[in-house]
């Protein structure tokens, strides 16, 4: 078990399905919050990429939901929680190059099949839980370094 550490900041952002006009707004807001806290450019960039990929996945493939930003003393956590439809095979969906994107999304440069992979690459801890027909919850954690060392 990881020890509980004090919460520095918590933000909750709604994400609306298919609303591409607003897509990216949460990621840029998260970036601003982290910069405001004086986080290193590396942490800000990694968290921003994780957030953008998750946000786009929610906009393109889910019925919407919310993104929760939790900043603790030793970590940044981004939680993505949607209202389905769920992921039947998480391993397959995580494979680089695998995509279910429709043609219109591919034409806009989405659907490269790299979204979940990019999220994993930029996270220190990464977990997807999904129930088909119900919901998917993703937790991406970026560690800020170990205090006391």
């Amino acid at each position, binding site marked *: 078990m990881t020890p509980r550490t004090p919460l520095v900041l918590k933000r909750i952002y709604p994400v609306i399905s298919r609303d*591409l*006009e607003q*897509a*990216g*707004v949460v*990621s*840029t807001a998260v*970036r601003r919050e982290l910069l405001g806290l004086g986080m290193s*450019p590396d942490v800000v*960039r990694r968290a*921003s*990429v994780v957030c*953008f*990929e998750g946000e*786009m996945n929610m906009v393109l493939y889910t019925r919407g939901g919310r993104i929760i930003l939790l900043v603790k003393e030793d970590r940044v956590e981004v939680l993505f929680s949607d209202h389905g439809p769920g992921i039947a095979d998480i391993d397959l969906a995580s494979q680089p190059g695998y995509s279910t994107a429709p043609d219109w999304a591919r034409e*806009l*440069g*989405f659907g*490269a*099949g*790299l*979204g979940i*992979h*990019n999220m994993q*690459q930029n996270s220190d801890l990464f977990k997807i839980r999904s129930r088909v027909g119900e919901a998917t919850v993703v937790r991406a954690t970026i560690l800020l370094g170990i205090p006391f060392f």
Partner: protein
Amino acid sequence: MQIREIAADIGLEALAVADPGREVAGGYCSDLLSDVLAHTQPGDLWITHQRHLNVVAVGKLRDVAGIVFARGLRPSPEVVARADAEQVNLLISSDPAFVVAGKLYSLLHR
């Protein structure tokens, strides 16, 4: 090299230039947003054919020096307004992406 010097040298039209003094370190060509998120470096000039709103967010999140739309592709006023608001440099080249990249490469590596 600053983006304003590069724009003048290789003939880029400025659409939104919030930071004309921004240093350009390199370049990256791609139309796949996840590929750009994974591989651009801060300070790169991103050359692309995509010109919708999300491009501004991707450029901002990766802290690119600017986004260049190749082949004279012009984004909508909403995209330019978003770039102004987010302080992302947007430029257009009438050249195809290959030529823009070639010119930028020669300029940065001469």
